C-alpha cells in the first residue's frame, strides 16, 4: 500500500538530539517513521550539526524546524521524502497543504480539483501543484488527485514531480484539471550504470554514451545490437537484413585484427553474446568508450564495453502487453539489372565474335545464324520440339548410375526468370511481449515473456525466439538485499552465408534468365544443359533447407547479495553466467538439375553445450567529508571460467529422404563424427577511487590486474586508467551565464586490454591426427587410410595482453535550461602489442599460427551527441536527438618484415581485394587503377614504345595481356610499365562518418517519430559486377551494362570493357578499380505514428494505458550505390553449431564492405499496440 503524503507528514514522533549531523538526524527519523529520505549529501550539507528537541510533534513540523534553517525544501513522493535546495527566490518552502495545514489562508477561496497522471494514465502521487508566483500549493494523494483552494480562477498552475518534466497549466476559468506529466528521461538517466556501480551523469569523468532505450527499441528486430545502429555516438554497427543475424559492433573504430566485438555486461555479468536478449526487457544501456570508463573491465575492455540493465518492478502490480505485427516487403524491379534471354544470347554472339572475328559463330542453343534464335527447349540442347514422354528424372535417386540415366526436358523461359523474386518473397514479422511487475519495501519483481517471429524475405530463413525473464529482489532487512536476474531463451534461426558466391543470393544473380525454375514435370531445372553456366538453382538450394533446423537455448543471469555493513560500506557478491546448448540438423539432398551436381545424400547433425560463470565480489566505501570532499572507493575480485564442447556427425546413403526417417543411425554410408572442447579462465583484482571536490572537481582512478589462462609465461596484465572532470558551470564566474545550465570538461588516459583473439591453445605446439591431411593409405588398400600425425598448432608461450592506450577529452553541456544537451569527445587510441598471427614462411611448415604481440594500430575520432527538447505550441512538442561518429583507423605495424596482410581472394588470380597495410586503415581495397580503355592499336603501340624507351628493355611492354577495348591501367609508380608495384589503394570501406537523427513530435494524444541513419565517405567493392558485367566470368547471367554499356568501336565511352570469351589481366583476372563504388547512404530506419487513447475513456474498462501505432522501417534509402543494399557488413557464420555461445552469428572478419550478394534490409510495415493495466 502506498503511503499517502498527508499520512506521512502527520505522523507524530518524539526526538531529542544534540549536536548531531543532519544526516544522523534524518537516519533516526527514517528509523522512527519507516520513511526514507532521498537527498544528495553535499547538497544538504548533511554533516552540519544541529540540535533539536520535539515531543509528539508531526513530522511536517519537525522537518520544517530541521530543514528551513538549512534552506531546504522537502516533498513527499511515493513513500519517500525528497530533499532539495530551496531556490533563492522563494526563501521559504511553499506551505504544504497535506495534513490539512496551511500557513497562509486567503478568503474567499474557490475549490479546484484535478489529477496528475503519467503518460500511461497512472496517477502520480506526491506531485506538487503550485499557483505560479504565489505561495499557494498542494500535493497529490496516492491516486494522483489533488484539491486546491484558489482565490480566483486565473493564473497558471505549476505541476511538478520528481522524474517528470514540470508542466505549466493555464487555469483559464476551469475548476477541474487532468494534467499529464511526461517522464523526464534526462533526469531518469542521470544515474548512469558504470563499471561495478552507478554514477550520476554529472559526476562522470569518462566517455559514456547513454542510450535512449525507448527510442532504440522501436526498431523491429530481434537484435538489440541492430537497434543500436545510429543511437550511440562512437558505435558503428554493420549488419544485414537477415533475421537473427547479429551485426558486427565496433566501438570507436577497429581495435584489433581479429574480433572487434565489445564486452557486454548484462546486470553485472560479462558476456560476449547478447543476441538472445529480449529488447523489451532492457531498462538502460550505456556504452563505455574510453579507458576512464571501461578500464575497470581491464583485460576485456579494449573493444569497449556495453552495459545493459534489465527492467525491475516497482509500485503496484502492473501488467503490460506490447505487440506488433507487420509485413516485410522486397525491393521491386530488376535489382541486378540482368539482361533478357534474347539479349543474353546477343551478348554471347558478340563476345564470341570479339574473341575470334573470323570464326563463324555456331551455338548449340542459339543456332548459327547472324543473330541468335532462342530455342523452345534448352534441354535437350537447342530443341524446338521434344517428345516429352521420354522424360525421366527421379529427384530422390540414390545412385550415380541412376543419375546418368536422367533424361531432362527443360523449356526455355523466353520471358526470363526473375531469380531474385523467385527466392525473395514478402514475409511477416511479429512480436508479443507480456510483463508483470511490481514492488514495494520488501522487494520487487518482474516477469516477462516474449515471442518473436521474423520470417526472412529469403525462403526458409527466419528467427523464432521465445524469451522468459524473471528479475526479483528481496529486501531481507534494511541492510541486506538478495536478488536474481534470469533469462531463458529458445531460438530457432536458420541462416545463410550471404555475401559469398555460393549462397542462394549469389546463385540468384548468376543463374541465366532463360532457365526456368522447374522443368516440364515440376522438378527443378538448373544449369544442366549446354551453355547454361555452372550456377545452382537458388530456389532448390533454399527449398531443400525446409526441414533443416535446430534449437539453441541459453540460461543467462545472476544471483546477488548486497549488504550495508557499516554506515558507508556496502559489500556485494554476484554469481552469474550462462548455460547454453544447441543443435542443428540438416539434410543434403542429391542434386540433379545443375551442371555440377553433388550426387550423394547426407545428413549432418551438430550440437554444442557449455557454460561460463563469473563470480564478482566488491566492497564499496562512500563518504563525504566536511560537505566538500566526496570519496568513493571500490575494491573487488572477479573470477571467470568458461567451458564448452561441440560434437557432430554426418552419415550418407539414405534409403529414404523422409525427414521423419533420417538420423545419424539410419544412413547406410560410413558415419563420420567430430568433437572438440575448450576451456579458459580469468582471474582479476579490481580497484577504483572517485573523488569529487565540492561537486566541481572530479577525479577518478581505476586499476585492474587480470590473469588469463590463454597466456603462459606472462599471464598477468595491469590496466590502469585516470580521468578527471571540471564542472565549469559550478564556478562562480559562470554562475551569471544563464544559458549554461551545466558545463563539464572531461579528460582521461588509460590502458585497456584484449585477449579475445587468442585461443586457449596459443602457448602450445601440438600434434594431431587429421583424416583429411595426415592419414594415408600406406597399405595400398584403395579404400582405407591409416593414422598419421601432423603439427596442428604452432605455439607461442610468450604471448601477453594486447594493450589499448587510450586518451580522451570531452565536454558535457546542458544549455538553455535543459533544452539542449551536448556531449562531445575526441579520442586517440593506440593499440600496442596487438596480437596478430602473422603468416610464417612456408619453409616453417604448416599448423595453426600462434598469436604474437607484434602489430600496432591507432584510432582517432570524434563522437558527438546532441539532444534538443522544444515546444512549438502548448500541445505540440518535439525532441531531436542526433549522434555523429567518426573514426580514423591506421595500421602502424603489422609484423617484422611485413608491412601488410591480404584478404579476400575471391575469383581473382590469387591476388586479393583487401590489403591491410601499414599507414592505411583496415580493410582497404587494393588493385590496379583503371585509366580508361585502349581505344585503338595505335595507343597500345605508342605505350609500348614509351615503355621500351623508358626501361631501355627492347622487349618491354607497357601492360600485359593488352588488346583494344580492354582496360588501360594507370602507371602509378611512373616506371613506364604496369607491374605488381602499380597496384594501389582503390577505396576504403571505413566511413568518414556515420550519423543518426531521431525526431520526435507530440501533439495531444498523437506522437510521431522518425529515425534517420546514414554513413558517408565509405566505398563498397561491388563484386557482383565481377559476375554480371564481364562475359567471360562464367557463363552466368549478365547485366545490361555488359551488353549495352560495354566497349565497342562504336561505343568507346563505355563502362565495361570489350566483351570477350576469356578473361585477362587487362579485364577481369586481377582486382581493379572497376568494382569500387561510393557507399554512402541515408536511410529512414524507422518511422512511427502513435495514438494514445484518453485515460478517462480507458479507465472504464480497467485499462491504464492503450497506445496503437503504425510503423515503417527502412521506408526509404538515398544512395548512389548501384547494388541491392548499401548496408554491407561481413560474412557471418551461418550454422548454429559454432563455438558455443561465443560468436554464434558474429563475424570476426576485418574485411568488410564487399558485396557479393547482400541479404538486403527490407521495408517493413507494422501495426502495434502498447497496453497496460
Amino acid at each position, binding site marked *: 500500500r502506498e503511503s499517502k503524503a498527508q499520512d506521512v507528514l502527520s505522523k507524530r514522533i518524539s526526538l531529542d538530539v544534540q549536536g548531531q549531523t543532519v544526516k544522523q538526524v534524518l537516519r533516526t527519523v527514517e528509523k522512527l517513521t519507516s520513511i526514507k529520505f532521498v537527498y544528495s549529501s553535499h547538497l544538504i550539507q548533511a554533516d552540519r550539526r544541529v540540535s533539536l528537541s520535539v515531543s509528539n510533534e508531526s513530522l511536517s513540523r519537525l522537518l520544517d524546524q530541521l530543514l528551513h534553517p538549512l534552506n531546504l525544501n522537502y516533498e513527499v513522493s511515493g513513500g519517500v521524502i525528497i530533499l532539495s535546495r530551496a531556490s533563492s527566490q522563494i526563501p521559504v518552502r511553499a506551505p504544504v497543504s497535506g495534513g490539512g495545514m496551511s500557513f497562509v489562508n486567503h478568503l474567499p477561496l474557490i475549490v479546484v480539483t484535478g489529477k496528475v497522471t503519467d503518460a500511461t494514465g497512472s496517477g502520480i502521487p506526491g506531485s506538487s501543484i503550485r499557483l505560479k508566483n504565489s505561495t499557494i500549493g498542494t500535493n497529490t494523494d496516492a491516486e494522483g488527485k489533488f484539491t486546491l483552494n484558489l482565490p480566483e480562477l486565473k493564473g497558471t498552475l505549476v505541476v511538478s514531480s520528481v522524474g517528470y518534466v514540470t508542466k505549466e497549466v493555464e487555469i483559464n476559468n476551469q475548476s477541474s484539471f487532468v494534467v499529464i506529466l511526461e517522464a523526464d528521461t534526462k533526469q531518469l538517466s542521470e544515474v548512469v550504470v558504470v563499471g561495478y556501480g552507478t554514477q550520476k551523469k554529472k559526476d562522470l569523468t569518462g566517455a559514456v554514451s547513454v542510450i535512449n532505450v525507448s527510442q532504440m527499441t522501436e526498431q523491429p528486430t530481434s537484435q538489440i545490437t541492430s537497434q543500436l545502429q545510429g543511437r550511440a555516438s562512437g558505435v558503428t554497427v554493420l549488419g544485414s537484413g537477415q533475421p537473427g543475424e547479429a551485426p558486427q559492433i565496433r566501438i570507436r573504430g577497429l581495435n584489433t585484427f581479429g574480433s572487434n566485438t565489445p564486452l557486454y555486461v548484462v546486470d553485472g555479468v560479462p558476456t560476449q553474446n547478447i543476441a538472445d536478449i529480449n529488447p523489451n526487457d532492457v531498462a538502460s544501456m550505456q556504452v563505455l568508450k574510453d579507458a576512464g570508463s571501461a578500464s575497470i573491465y581491464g583485460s576485456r575492455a579494449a573493444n569497449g564495453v556495453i552495459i545493459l540493465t534489465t527492467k525491475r518492478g516497482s509500485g503496484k502490480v502492473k501488467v503490460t502487453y506490447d505487440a506488433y505485427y507487420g509485413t516485410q516487403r522486397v525491393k521491386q524491379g530488376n535489382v541486378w539489372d540482368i539482361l533478357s534471354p534474347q539479349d543474353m544470347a546477343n551478348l554471347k554472339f558478340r563476345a564470341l565474335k570479339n574473341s575470334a572475328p573470323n570464326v563463324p559463330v555456331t551455338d548449340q542453343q542459339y543456332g548459327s545464324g547472324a543473330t541468335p534464335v532462342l530455342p523452345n527447349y534448352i534441354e535437350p540442347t537447342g530443341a524446338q520440339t521434344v517428345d516429352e514422354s521420354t522424360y525421366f528424372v527421379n529427384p530422390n535417386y540414390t545412385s550415380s548410375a541412376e543419375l546418368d540415366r536422367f533424361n531432362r526436358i527443360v523449356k526455355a523461359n523466353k520471358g526470363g526468370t526473375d531469380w531474385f523474386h523467385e527466392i525473395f518473397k514478402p514475409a511477416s514479422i511479429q512480436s508479443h511481449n507480456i510483463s508483470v511487475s511490481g514492488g514495494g519495501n520488501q522487494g520487487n519483481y518482474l516477469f516477462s515473456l516474449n515471442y518473436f517471429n521474423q520470417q526472412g524475405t529469403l525462403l526458409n530463413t527466419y528467427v523464432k525466439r521465445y524469451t522468459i525473464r524473471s528479475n526479483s529482489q528481496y529486501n531481507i532487512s534494511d541492510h541486506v538485499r538478495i536478488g536474481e536476474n534470469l533469462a531463458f531463451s529458445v531460438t530457432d534461426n536458420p541462416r545463410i552465408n550471404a555475401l559469398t558466391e555460393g549462397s542462394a543470393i549469389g546463385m540468384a544473380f548468376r543463374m541465366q534468365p532463360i532457365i526456368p525454375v522447374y522443368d516440364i514435370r515440376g522438378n527443378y531445372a538448373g544449369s544442366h544443359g549446354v551453355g547454361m553456366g555452372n550456377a545452382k538453382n537458388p530456389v532448390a538450394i533454399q527449398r531443400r533447407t525446409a526441414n533443416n533446423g535446430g534449437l539453441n537455448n541459453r540460461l543467462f543471469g545472476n544471483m546477488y547479495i548486497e549488504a550495508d555493513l557499516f554506515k558507508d560500506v556496502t559489500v556485494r557478491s554476484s554469481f552469474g553466467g550462462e548455460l547454453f546448448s544447441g543443435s542443428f540438423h540438416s539434410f543434403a539432398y542429391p542434386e540433379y538439375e545443375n551442371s555440377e551436381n553433388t550426387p550423394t545424400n547426407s545428413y549432418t547433425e551438430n550440437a554444442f553445450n557449455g557454460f561460463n560463470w563469473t563470480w564478482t565480489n566488491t566492497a564499496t566505501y562512500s563518504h563525504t567529508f566536511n560537505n566538500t570532499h566526496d570519496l568513493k572507493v571500490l575494491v573487488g575480485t572477479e573470477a571467470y571460467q568458461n567451458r564448452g564442447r561441440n560434437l557432430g556427425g554426418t552419415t550418407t546413403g539414405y534409403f529414404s529422404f523422409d525427414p521423419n526417417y533420417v538420423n545419424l543411425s539410419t544412413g547406410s554410408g560410413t558415419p563420420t563424427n567430430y568433437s572438440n572442447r575448450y576451456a579458459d579462465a580469468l582471474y582479476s583484482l579490481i580497484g577504483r577511487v572517485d573523488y569529487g571536490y565540492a561537486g566541481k572537481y572530479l577525479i577518478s582512478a581505476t586499476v585492474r590486474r587480470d590473469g588469463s589462462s590463454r597466456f603462459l609465461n606472462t599471464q598477468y596484465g595491469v590496466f590502469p586508467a585516470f580521468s578527471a572532470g571540471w564542472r565549469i558551470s559550478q564556478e562562480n564566474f559562470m554562475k551569471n551565464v544563464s544559458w549554461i545550465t551545466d558545463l563539464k570538461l572531461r579528460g582521461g588516459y588509460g590502458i585497456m586490454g584484449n585477449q579475445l583473439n587468442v585461443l586457449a591453445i596459443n602457448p602450445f605446439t601440438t600434434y594431431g591426427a587429421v*583424416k583429411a591431411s595426415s592419414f594415408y593409405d600406406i597399405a595400398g588398400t584403395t579404400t582405407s587410410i*591409416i593414422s*598419421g600425425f601432423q603439427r596442428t598448432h604452432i605455439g607461442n608461450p610468450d604471448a601477453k595482453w594486447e594493450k589499448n592506450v587510450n586518451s580522451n577529452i570531452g565536454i558535457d553541456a546542458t544549455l538553455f535550461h535543459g533544452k539542449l544537451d551536448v556531449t562531445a569527445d575526441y579520442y586517440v587510441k593506440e593499440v600496442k602489442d596487438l596480437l596478430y598471427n602473422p603468416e610464417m614462411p612456408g619453409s616453417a611448415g*604448416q599448423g595453426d599460427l600462434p598469436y604474437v604481440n607484434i602489430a600496432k594500430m591507432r584510432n582517432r575520432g570524434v563522437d558527438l551527441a546532441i539532444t534538443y527538447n522544444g515546444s512549438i505550441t502548448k500541445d505540440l512538442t518535439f525532441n531531436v536527438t542526433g549522434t555523429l561518429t567518426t573514426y580514423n583507423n591506421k595500421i602502424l605495424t603489422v609484423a617484422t618484415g611485413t608491412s601488410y596482410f591480404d584478404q579476400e581472394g575471391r575469383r581473382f588470380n590469387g591476388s586479393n581485394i583487401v590489403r591491410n597495410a601499414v599507414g592505411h586503415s583496415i580493410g582497404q581495397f587494393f588493385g590496379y587503377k583503371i585509366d580508361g580503355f585502349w581505344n585503338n592499336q595505335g595507343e597500345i603501340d605508342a605505350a609500348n614504345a614509351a615503355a621500351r624507351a623508358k626501361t631501355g628493355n627492347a622487349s618491354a611492354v607497357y601492360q600485359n595481356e593488352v588488346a583494344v577495348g580492354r582496360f588501360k591501367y594507370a602507371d602509378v609508380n611512373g616506371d613506364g610499365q604496369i607491374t605488381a608495384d602499380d597496384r594501389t589503394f582503390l577505396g576504403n570501406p571505413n566511413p568518414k562518418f556515420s550519423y543518426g537523427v531521431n525526431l520526435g513530435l507530440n501533439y495531444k494524444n498523437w506522437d510521431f517519430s522518425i529515425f534517420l541513419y546514414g554513413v558517408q565517405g565509405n566505398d563498397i567493392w561491388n563484386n557482383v559486377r565481377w559476375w554480371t558485367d564481364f562475359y567471360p566470368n562464367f557463363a552466368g547471367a549478365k547485366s545490361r551494362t555488359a551488353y549495352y554499356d560495354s566497349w565497342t568501336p562504336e561505343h568507346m565511352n563505355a563502362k565495361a570493357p570489350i566483351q570477350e570469351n576469356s578473361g585477362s589481366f587487362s579485364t577481369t583476372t586481377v582486382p581493379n578499380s572497376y568494382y569500387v563504388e561510393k557507399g554512402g547512404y541515408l536511410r529512414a530506419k524507422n518511422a512511427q505514428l502513435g495514438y494514445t487513447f484518453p485515460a478517462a475513456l480507458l479507465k472504464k474498462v480497467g485499462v491504464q494505458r492503450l497506445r496503437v501505432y503504425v510503423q515503417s522501417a527502412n521506408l526509404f534509402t538515398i544512395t548512389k550505390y548501384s547494388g541491392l543494399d548499401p548496408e554491407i557488413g561481413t560474412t557471418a557464420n551461418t550454422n548454429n553449431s559454432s563455438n558455443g555461445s561465443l560468436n554464434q552469428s558474429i563475424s570476426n572478419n576485418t574485411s568488410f564492405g564487399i558485396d557479393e550478394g547482400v541479404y538486403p534490409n527490407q521495408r517493413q510495415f507494422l501495426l502495434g499496440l502498447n497496453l497496460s493495466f
Partner: protein
Amino acid sequence: CQNSFLDQPALGALNDSQLQSNAGVQTLLVGAYAVLDGVGAGAANPWDAAPGNWIYGSVAGGDAHKGSDGSDQAGINSIMQYSHDASNGFFNSKWKAVYEGVNRSNTTLFYLKKAKDITDADAKTIEAEARFLRGHYYFELKKMFKMVPWIDETTTDYAKPNVDDFKKQNTEDIWPKIEADLKFAADNLPATQSQVGRVNKWAALAYLAKAYLYQNKYQDAKTAFDQVISSGVTSNGLKYGLTDKYEDNFDAAAKNNKESVFAIQMAANDGTNAIDNANSGQMLNFPYQSPFRCCGFYQPTQDLVNSYRTDADGLPYVDTYNQTAVKNDMGLASSTAEKPTTFDPDQTALDPRLDWTVGRRGIPYLDWGNHPGQTWIRSQPYAGPYSPKKNVYWQYNQDKYADNHSWAPGTAINVLIIRFADVLLMAAEAEAQLGNLAKAQEYVNLVRARAANKTGWVYKYQDETKPMAGFSTTPAANYKISVYPDGKFAALGKAGALKAIYFERKLELAMEGHRFFDLSRWGIAEATLNAYIAYESKITTDLTGGHFTAGKNEYFPIPQRQIDLTTMGTTKTLTQNPSY
C-alpha cells in the same frame, strides 16, 4: 590456488612428450607420407599443389590446355601463357604444400632422435623413409623453383636464404643434399616392405638416378639405372617390368603393379565422406556435364594429339607431327535425337597410346560410351575439343574407385611419380648421352613394344549403346606402331637419338606432369613451347599472347609472398629467380 585456476593445458591435441616413442615416430612418418598428395598442407586449393603437377608439368609443358572456361582458375591462364609473375597464388600454394612435406619429414627425424624405444634397425628404416620423402619434396622444389632454402630437422630459423648460404658452403645449391638423402635411403631401405605404400631401396635408387640425370651426371645415372633395371623390385616384391597393358598404369584396380616404382597412394570412399585422400588435386579434370559432372579442365592439346600420328613404318613424326592435324570435331554440335550430327574420327595411322591419353569424339571413353564431343566440353573455342583420360575411373567399378562425396569426383587411381617406363626412358637418355645408342634404343623399344601389344589397345564397343557390355575386336582407330628397327638410333646419331628419346617421353608420359620439367632441363623449352603456342593458338583462344622467354621461364618464380614473409626490414632473405 590462483595459479592452478589459470593453468589450462591444450585440449584434444598431443604434446611433445607424447610423441617421443616408437609408435609416435611411426605415426609421424605416416603423416609425412600423407602430405605427398598436397592436400591440407597450406595450399589454397588441392589442385594448386596437385602432386602429379598437371598444371606445372603438363599444362605448362604443352600437353594440355587449362581447359574449362576463361575465368575459372584464372591464375593458371598466365602459367599457360608464361605471363605469370611472382604474385600468382598458385606458386605460393605449391611452395607451402611441398615445404609442409619437408617439415613433416623433419619432424619425424627430430622425434626419432628423442625416442628411446626404437631398435637400431627400425630407426634406420624410419630415417631412410623420412629422408627419402624429404628428398622427394626437395626434388619437387628444385625442379619448380631452382633455388630454395634448405630446411632440416636442426633448423630453428626458417627465414633461410636460398642462395648465399650455399655459397658459404662452397656449393651451388641443394642438389648434393637431395642426393645425400636419396642415397641414404637407397643404402638403408629394405628391398621389400610390409606395406606397399612405403618406399623401398629400389625406388630410392631410381629417384637418385633421376636426380643425377637432372644434373646431367649421366654416368652416375646410368650406373644406378642399370641396377634398378636389372635387380629392382617393387615394395611388394614384384620384379620391375612393364605391364602388359599400357592402361593398367591408370586403372585403380591394377595399381601397385610391377611398373609402379614410386606411387602416391590414393583411397576412395575411405570413410571420411570427403575426397581429400582421393586425388582431389585432379578433381577438376573430368569431362564437363558428363557422368563425372565437373569440371572440364585439363584438355589435351591438338599439338599433343598430332604427336601420336605414325608413319608407314609405325614410327612417330618427330619433327613434322604438326604438318597434318589429326581430325577433330571443333564446332560440330554433339549428336542428339533432335539434331543428329555425325563425326567420323581420323582414319590415318595413330599410336594406340593416344586413346588411353586423350578423350576424343567417337572413340570409346573407357566404358562410359563414345566420347560425345561438344557436350562434354565447356568451351571448344576456348580450349579445344579434347578431354583427359589417364586420371579417369571406369564405370564398371566406379562404386569402389570413384568417390562422389563432393561436387567433383575423387578417385583411387594412384599418382605415379616414377613408373618403370619412365625409368627405361631416363636410362635411355643417360645411355644416349654416354654414346651407347644401341642400349638406348633397346630401352625405347621396350616401351614401344608394350604399346604395340594389341591386347592393350582401345577397341570399339560391341554395342555403342551399352558400353559396359564389353569391347569388340575392332580397334577404335587405325593404330599402327612399331619398334625402331635395329641400328636406327646409330643411324640417327646422338642428337637424333636423343630427339627420338625425348619424343618417346612425350608420347609415353603425356599428361603425367613431366613435360615442362623435361623441356626445361633439356634446354629446348623456348623453341618447343613457342612453336607449340604458335600452332595451338590457331585452334583455340586461350593461348593468345603467350610467349616463353628463355632464361626466365625455365623455372617458376619464387613466390612473392614467401619473399615478403622472409624480408627482415628491407633486407630480402630469398633471392628471386632471374628476370622475375
